């Protein structure tokens, strides 16, 4: 093979710089949809830009629940009847002493689950407990919003949010 001419080398040099940027722009172009430019947000909520263009979308989405949960009520299990008042801070459920609601329940883990407020709603999240947390009849694998009166089962204990 002979030496390449200067012109070819220069062309290759700039071609390579171009290639790096082609890669970058291809990635960014493919990401466009994921960045939700022009599309709807993943949650289904209208984006700020869509709201500007179509003000009627804002009214179409009424602010969710009117009734706020104020009480945490234990309906079943050893602590049945216990009530905990909910403030703005998260609630830790479990057998550990530092839990907000100390469950005397052999089927509960030390730090079993946490209830936390976000916006106007409360969410429950399992903290890697041994026996799991159930919201309604569904086992939690992620944080889920808790509606008023829906039973949350932790071991033998069942708790509910009350207004």
């Amino acid at each position, binding site marked *: *093979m*002979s*030496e*390449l001419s200067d012109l070819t*080398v*220069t062309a*290759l*040099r*700039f071609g*390579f*710089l171009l*290639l*790096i*940027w*082609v*890669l*970058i722009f*291809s*990635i*960014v172009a*493919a*990401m466009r949809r*994921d960045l939700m430019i022009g599309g*709807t947000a*993943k*949650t*289904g909520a209208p984006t700020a830009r869509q709201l500007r263009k179509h003000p009627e979308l804002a009214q179409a989405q009424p602010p969710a629940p009117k009734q706020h949960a104020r009480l945490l009520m234990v309906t079943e299990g050893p602590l049945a009847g216990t009530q905990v008042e909910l403030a703005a*801070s*998260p*609630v*830790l459920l479990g057998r550990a002493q*530092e839990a*907000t609601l100390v469950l005397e329940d052999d*089927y509960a883990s030390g*730090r079993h689950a*946490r209830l*936390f407020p976000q916006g106007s709603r409360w969410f429950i*999240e399992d*903290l*890697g407990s041994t*026996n*799991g947390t*159930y919201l309604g*009849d*569904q*086992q*939690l*694998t*992620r*944080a*889920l*919003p808790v*509606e008023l009166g829906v039973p949350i*089962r932790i*071991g*033998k204990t069942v708790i509910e949010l009350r207004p």
Partner: protein
Amino acid sequence: MSTALTDSVVVKPRRNIELVLLVLALLVGIGASVLSSVNNPGSLNGSFWFQSSLLAVASLAMHITLRIRAQYADPFILPVAVALNGLGLAMIHRLDGSKGTAGDNQLRWTLIAVACTIVLIWVLRDHRRLRGFTYISLAVSAVLLVLPMVPGLTAGDINGAQLWIQIGPFTFQPAEIAKITLAIFFAGYLSVNRDLILLAGRKIGPLQLPRFRDMGPMLAAWAVSIGILVLQRDMGTSFMFFSLFMVMIYVATGRVSWVVIGLILIAVAGTVAAQLFTHVKFRMESWYDAFDPVIYNRDPGGSSQIVNGLFGMADGGIFGTGLGQGQPYLVPYANSDMIIASFGEELGLIGLAGMILLYLLLITRGFRAALGARDSFGKLMGVGLSFVMAVQCFVVIGGVTRLIPLTGLTTPFLAAGGSSLLANWIVVGLLLMISNTARGPVDTSPLHHGDDDSAGASAPPSGDTAPIRDTHVTQEVS
């Protein structure tokens, strides 16, 4: 309600886009190798093409693994990692010249690292299973951090820092792996304990200060970082661990006060260390007085390395000298600590800016995976791992361009060094797994039984088992 939320999500695996981008990335990586040997056509022989095809085969194997095991994983992470790794390989080979072996070594480690990541994705399936290893990770991190000081294992002082261990002919930097295990520990610990840290505390102005006893872990992390700084004499690693902790506790609690306290602690430690330790003092001086002849010529601890790197980058200018056309080998450690300066010289500002953008894309995809993750453990781990990578880039690139004092952290995927490559590929594997559960269909909601099959494997408690376990519990009650 939750089903209404998830129904609106259109989930596409997007693996084909990944394949297209992967081919482009391989074109960049292998193209860089070809270009750097343009002046030396003899080196474009069979063994060169064999080595290049090994890289291609490894990344395609990873791609196929994702198709089978994690089909909803983020499609952009793998191509970016492959492109950076390929660029690094090309530059290290090019700096080797005809006799060096660092390039072959780097390729070997690339293959090992990709293989380990494939095994990890294959075996682990779901990052949430790592939560069970929270405290084991802490123990492992502690062992890894102490290892370089154990007599018999330690590789002694290398470039003034005691960070390496030696087993037979191999040297290894355990701190690279420790950053992963520490991120796992912090994520596991903080996802359970954050409410305790969050609840109590006094409010001063806009800042809500934590209680003193909740600061225990932070002070411990600070003490460990100081220990690394003093005993192993490495500023970069020390800063990396501390900022990892600071960011994870900030993300877990959302309190700015942690960041403020952390920055104050860093400032205090930095000032004191600069006064007490000569190696820190030298680093500081060769940063702000780099062009002073006395400091330039000082040995050890002179600024000639930084200044030569700057000269190289200045020589490269906007478009660079072209791969294989510059003289980056004039700078000490041109293929590891200073590899950014080597790229700056041969690819110029335009090429280097592109590479920094690639890092930016990689890191934002990591954060994106963390944002989408449905469990707080995955969120925290994703943020922690992506942030560590960001810190590494900032510390190294900032150091080489003389924005901050130069300290020895590795440039992810580029720098020569097996432990760094292995660790960063594992980070990529974990981020891919987090993004798989983040983008994939929700695995428990009863309405999603049908399309659960493939992704269901990634979630231990799937919708099917839930009712069975439920009745099991009720039976025990009655």
